[in-house]
Structures are given as C-alpha cells and as structure tokens.
C-alpha cells in the first residue's frame, strides 16, 4: 500500500479546515472595520489595532503577563533542570517513585489546582500578587520542565560524558562542560514552552487574580464576557504570531510532538 489513499486524505483535509477555522477567522476579524462581530466583515481597516494601542487595561495586563512568564520560566528552569539531571543520570532506589511524584501535577486539572491554591494563598495574602501568580504558574511549569528535560538528558549518548570522565574531568566539570552544552537545544525549547505555558495559563490565574493584578488571559476573559467587538481579535493576532514563533523554534530544535507528547 502506498500512502494514505484518496478517501482518507480527503477526510483529513476537511478536518484540517475545521481545526484551522477559528484561527483563520480571528485573524481576518482583526482587520474588520465593523464595530461588532460580523463575519465576513463588511470592510477592512486597522482601527482595532489602533484601539488596542490605546487600551490601558489590556496593555497593562500584557506587560504583567510578560513579567510573570519571564520570572516563571527562569525559576522553573532553575528548580526543574537540576531535578531532571538527577533523575536521568543519578542511580537511586526511589527514582521511579520520584518521577511519578513529579509528573502527578500534570494530571491534576488546573481547575482543581487553582481552587487549592486560592484556599492556600488567601490566608497568606498571596492572591492577586505577583509572587502568588508566579508560584501558581510554577505548579504547571516545574513538572513540565522536569518531564521534558529528563527525556532530553536520557537521550544523550553516555559515551561522551564517559570519555570526559575517563580523561580525568570531575563529575561537576563533566556536567558543566559536556552535558549542559549538549542539551542546549532542548533547554531553549523548554524555556520557550514554559514561557508560553505561563503566558497562556488562564484557569489558575482566574482563581488567583484580583482587580489589581490581572494577567492578559484574565483581562481577555473579562472583556469577552462584557462585550463582543473585534478588539480581542486584534490582540489575538499578536498572540497567534508569538505562538507560531515558539512553535517554529521548538520544531526546529526538538520537535513539537515530542515536546508536548509523553
């Protein structure tokens, strides 16, 4: 048999159109000249991009989200990469149990995690604060970093490190001069995805955001609940472009399917 066959390819093409429809429609709507959601738009303009450039709540939320995602990414790598290194290279009895412990948070729905964090943070006065949101997002990104980097460390060929050790390099020197440079592509891909995970995190942020500290997705949810005009579409174009950049970088470095799958 050769390839997918005509019937199957046709069916797949239809589904692809469905998958891409919401994204294509949002991009087209961003250039609408109408004051409400009308598709196809009756005319095209850049008015919603101009409107966005002057919309303080959304721009403030965007800036807050960029700050949070940057801090979350740095801290998650600092906590997660050493753990992944130990899991991949160390030899100890309770490694499997520990691996499961680190992966468990990825299985907990963010709805439950968000509620648990709200109850935990409120008496500590951490809700609607930058530290609170950072810690909340890290419950998602730290396990993600550990999972992705453990795989990255495990797939490294052992012989280069063994050679360095044989030539007299101390274990820490091997890690610093051989192991880490070898996983740099994985590390960059992992950083990009952690940033995106934090930047897009909606449910945990909704639980933890107050009127003072609202991240971009929270502000977008509030806007969509109140009004329906193409302003969010204009903002969405920026988010889609940013996501595409991350997707291209990750695909080039390690492969998207490998990074987000198990």
């Amino acid at each position, binding site marked *: 048999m050769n390839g997918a066959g005509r019937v199957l390819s046709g069916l797949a093409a239809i*589904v692809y159109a469905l998958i891409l429809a919401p994204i294509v*429609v949002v991009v087209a709507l961003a250039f609408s000249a109408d004051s409400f959601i009308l598709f196809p738009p009756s005319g095209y303009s850049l008015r919603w991009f101009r409107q966005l450039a002057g919309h303080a709540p959304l721009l403030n939320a965007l800036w807050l989200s960029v700050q949070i995602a940057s801090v979350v990414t740095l801290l998650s790598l600092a906590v997660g990469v*050493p753990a992944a290194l130990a899991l991949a290279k160390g030899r100890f009895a309770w490694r499997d149990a520990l691996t499961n412990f680190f992966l468990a948070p990825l299985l907990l729905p963010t709805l*439950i995690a968000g509620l648990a964090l709200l109850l935990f943070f409120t008496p500590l006065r951490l809700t609607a604060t930058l530290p609170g949101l950072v810690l909340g997002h890290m419950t998602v990104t730290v396990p993600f970093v550990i999972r992705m980097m453990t795989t990255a460390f495990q797939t490294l060929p052992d012989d280069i490190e063994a050679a360095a050790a044989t030539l007299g390099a101390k274990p820490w020197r091997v890690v610093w001069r051989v192991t880490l440079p070898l996983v740099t592509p994985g590390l960059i891909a992992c950083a990009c995805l952690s940033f995106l995970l934090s930047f897009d995190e909606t449910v945990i942020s909704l639980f933890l955001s107050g009127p003072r500290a609202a991240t971009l997705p929270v502000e977008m949810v509030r806007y969509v609940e109140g009004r329906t005009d193409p302003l969010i579409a204009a903002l*969405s174009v920026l988010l889609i472009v940013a996501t595409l950049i991350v997707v291209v970088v990750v*695909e080039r470095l390690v492969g*998207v399917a490998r990074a987000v799958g198990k």
Partner: protein
Amino acid sequence: MTGSTRLNLLVLPAVLFLLAVYVWPTLGLFRNAFNEVGPTGAMVEAWSLKTGAEVFADGFTFELTLNSLWLSLTSTLIALVLSYPVSLFLFRTNSRFRGLLAVIAIMPMLISGVVRVFGWLAILGDRGLVNTLAQSLGLISTPMRLVFNWTGVTIGLAESIMPYMILALLAGFGQLDRTLEEASRSLGATPFRTFLRVTLPLSLPALALAAGLGFVLSMSAYITPKLLGGGRVFVLATEIFEQATTNTNWPVAAMLAIYTLGLLLLLLAISNIAARRLQR
C-alpha cells in the same frame, strides 16, 4: 561514590517546591471540604460531613453531574470521529509535509483557549460565518442560535480536545501491524472492508484511551463552557468556580472539586480497563 550522592541532592529544590505549593494545598482542599458554613455565611472550622450532606442532598448537584457527563460524552464522541481520520492520515502518509501537517494538527493546543473561543464566537454567532452563509444561500431566514447554549459549548470543547486525542491516537497506531492490512487486501478485500474488519478493530485500544483522555479534559474544562455558554450552561466546573469566587463558599467548592476529581479517576480507570480488554 560521593559525586553521585551529591547529584541526587539536586532533586531537593523541586521536591520541596512541590510539597509546599502542590501537595500541601491539595491536602488543604480536602480539609476544607469538611468545614462548615455558619448562618452568617462565614466559614467555621470543623470536622463534619454537614457540607457533604448538603451538597449531595441538593438536586442541583445531580443535575450538574448529568450535564457534565452528557457534555463530555458528546464532545468526546465528536472529537473522536474527527480526530481518527487525521491520525490515520498522519500515520500512513508518505508526504514530505508530514512533519508540518502533524505540527498544524497539534498546534491549537499551544494557542490560547480564549483566542480559539473568540474564533468560535465569530463563526457561530448570530452574525457569524455560519449564519451569514446560510442566510445568503436562503437556507434560513432568521439566525440560528449556535452560541451561548449547549451547541456552542459542545463544538468548542470538541475542537479544544482534538489535538490531545490526535496525539493519543497517533501513539496508539504505533502498534498497528501493517502486514495484517496488506494480507487482507491481497486476499481480495476492498479498502473499506479492510478498514472495517482489520484496521478499526486493531485500533480500538487506542480509541478507548483517547476517549478517556478527551472525557477527562472536557469534564474539567472551564473557559469554554463559561464563555461559549454565556451563563446559560451549568456544569460541575462552572459551579466549582462560581462557589469559590462569587459565593466564596469554600467548603462547598472544595467538596464539589473532590467529587469531580473522584468522577475523573473513575472514568480514567474505566477507559484503561477497556483499553486493556480490547488489546486481547
């Protein structure tokens, strides 16, 4: 070896972090479910089953459960039917664009959920793509209500879980033996008959696992039911959020969350058992 012992210590920061910000809050969630709400609406520390009794005596909880299960079932089935051909296509194709096509299929899971929900508003809204098209073709005279009801939520949810199911199905197809299909074809079976009698039965375990995953994801989804439901769609997820934030009734929110988590674990166990049975 001392170097190796010190290497093991590298897990400590991550362990401490997760103990403090994941394990401890989750235990706190369980603890909260046994607190009571006093007559003033303030929370009273207690070890009682009063909150639990109230939640489960309320007919609304039962209604929410049925709503959640029905919504998850319909959106999972739609997503399964749509994901299957894409996964099989990606598994079989020799196209040099295979890598790119796989990325496009799973890319939506990296795009913000709010963005995709907004896209569906533009497609399904009163003046959206579908209604404009149907009206200009003369199929309908007044717009169909496709959002801010169960229809919109089901469509949006099905779309949002598809990337995960496509990945799960692709992983499952890895075990499919191509020589069996070739044997069926060479013995004279039509492609359709080969699909029905060989390919489909062999992919049933993968389908069961993907269905379990889709079910769990759609039952715990909050953004899609909230925004595409427009306040008219009530499921367990929306009620948990409502109780926790608007009503600040933490014991009830915690009890509902634990109940939902229990349902999710049960559903996952069922799909895993089904997958194992079908494997034989």
